[in-house]
């Protein structure tokens, strides 16, 4: 029998190590795995690379990890969201590295990794500062920059409903980065609001099939 449910945040995060690349879902606070991120702080791992659309807000989650000096680098499209004091302070102090990536390229680079591809040519950023140092290639008369896959050691997600196979359904705009990050990491961990019986999520409406999910914890 397959049962991906674990009974604690600690069990959900077990095995994550210093230096790990963490894909942290959510767009601002919506769809963000707050309790799992808090759990990372508690378990004490550091030297993390965090991929997330924003670089933390207020004093919890990613912001708390940054405040505690646990994050070496953030890969994001827009670091400053509501109340970005933790990132701002670390950035000004030179305590954190920032890789700024256009929002659609972050998600596409993760999908590229998920799909087993070696990279792709993107029209986004051509001729701008964000393409500095990147290979540029003309294809059928148009210029593109080469983008490489972005893979995580761990993806931390927040879902609305989950079953014991790890099938997931999200709610409204809380879906955002969750399905893409689910596919792009070695270990995919989900905090779900509700664990439902196998089959309760309509097979036509499974947003993330369980094949991408390793652990589910109900929060």
């Amino acid at each position: 029998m397959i049962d991906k449910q674990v009974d604690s945040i600690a069990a959900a995060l077990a095995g994550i190590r210093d230096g790990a690349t963490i894909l942290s879902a959510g767009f601002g606070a919506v769809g963000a795995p707050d309790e799992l991120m808090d759990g990372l702080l508690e378990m004490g791992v550091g030297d993390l690379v965090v991929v997330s659309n924003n670089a933390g807000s207020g004093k919890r989650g990613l912001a708390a990890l940054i405040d505690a000096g646990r994050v070496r680098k953030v890969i994001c499209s827009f670091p400053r969201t509501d109340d970005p004091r933790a990132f701002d302070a670390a950035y000004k102090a030179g305590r954190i590295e920032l890789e700024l990536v256009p929002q659609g390229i972050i998600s596409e680079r993760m999908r590229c990794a998920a799909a087993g591809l070696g990279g792709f040519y993107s029209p986004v950023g051509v001729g701008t500062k964000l393409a500095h140092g990147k290979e540029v290639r003309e294809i059928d008369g148009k210029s593109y920059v080469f983008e490489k896959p972005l893979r995580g050691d761990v993806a931390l997600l927040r879902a609305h409903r989950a079953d014991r196979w790890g099938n997931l359904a999200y709610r409204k705009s809380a879906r955002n980065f969750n399905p893409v990050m689910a596919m792009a990491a070695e270990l995919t961990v989900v905090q779900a609001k509700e664990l439902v019986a196998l089959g309760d999520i309509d097979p036509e409406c499974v947003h993330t099939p369980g094949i991408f999910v390793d652990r589910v914890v109900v929060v």
Partner: protein
Amino acid sequence: MTPLSRSQMAWRAAQDIDNGWYVNLGIGLPTLVSDHIPPGREIVFHSENGLLGMGPKPQPHEVDTDLINAGKGLTTLITGGSFFHHADAFLMIRGGHLDLSIMGAFEVSEAGDLANWTTEDPSFPPGVGGAMDLAVGARRVRVLLEHTTKDGKPRIKVKCDYPLTAAHCVSRIYTNLAVIDVTPEGLIVREIVEGLSFDELQQKTGARLTLANDWAPLVPKLASTATH
């Protein structure tokens, strides 16, 4: 001469959106555009965080904290709308599936180059969000901006001074003074606010303008006191 208010600028941009278009509105001023769609036109608003069919701000009883827009404000979904993930949201943007992206801008060049993501202010870290994706990907990119900076310097220029978001992407510019098309023949003025001469407009602009033969006065049908 009375420059257009922000609402009037949004109103003017809204007049050019056709029935049935799929449209992304940038954060800030462009979001006001959705309040001014002429009656009878059904427009589908896209949000890069995974919505098609985005509606107005929720009434108090409609508030759902899982339903936000790209500016991270609360929003609604109208009947017929749908949810999808970020990679699909940006496939729509980058793949030319949006009829129109309306964005704010710091500067626009006469070649349609857009600068709207960073002023390189060293006091805080830069952010790009989805601006580059939208500028490159939408079928049409139109911008809304004040014609000049607060100290009267032009924002429409031969070449942008701020770092580019994308080159050759803007096709129409709405300012508080005029409506200007970016064409292979350069910047063509379509409309000017009443009481401002073409020469005066040219003086406030950093690139050469040409007045269209069929230019018209820019007359907002919306009271300038309308605010949002």
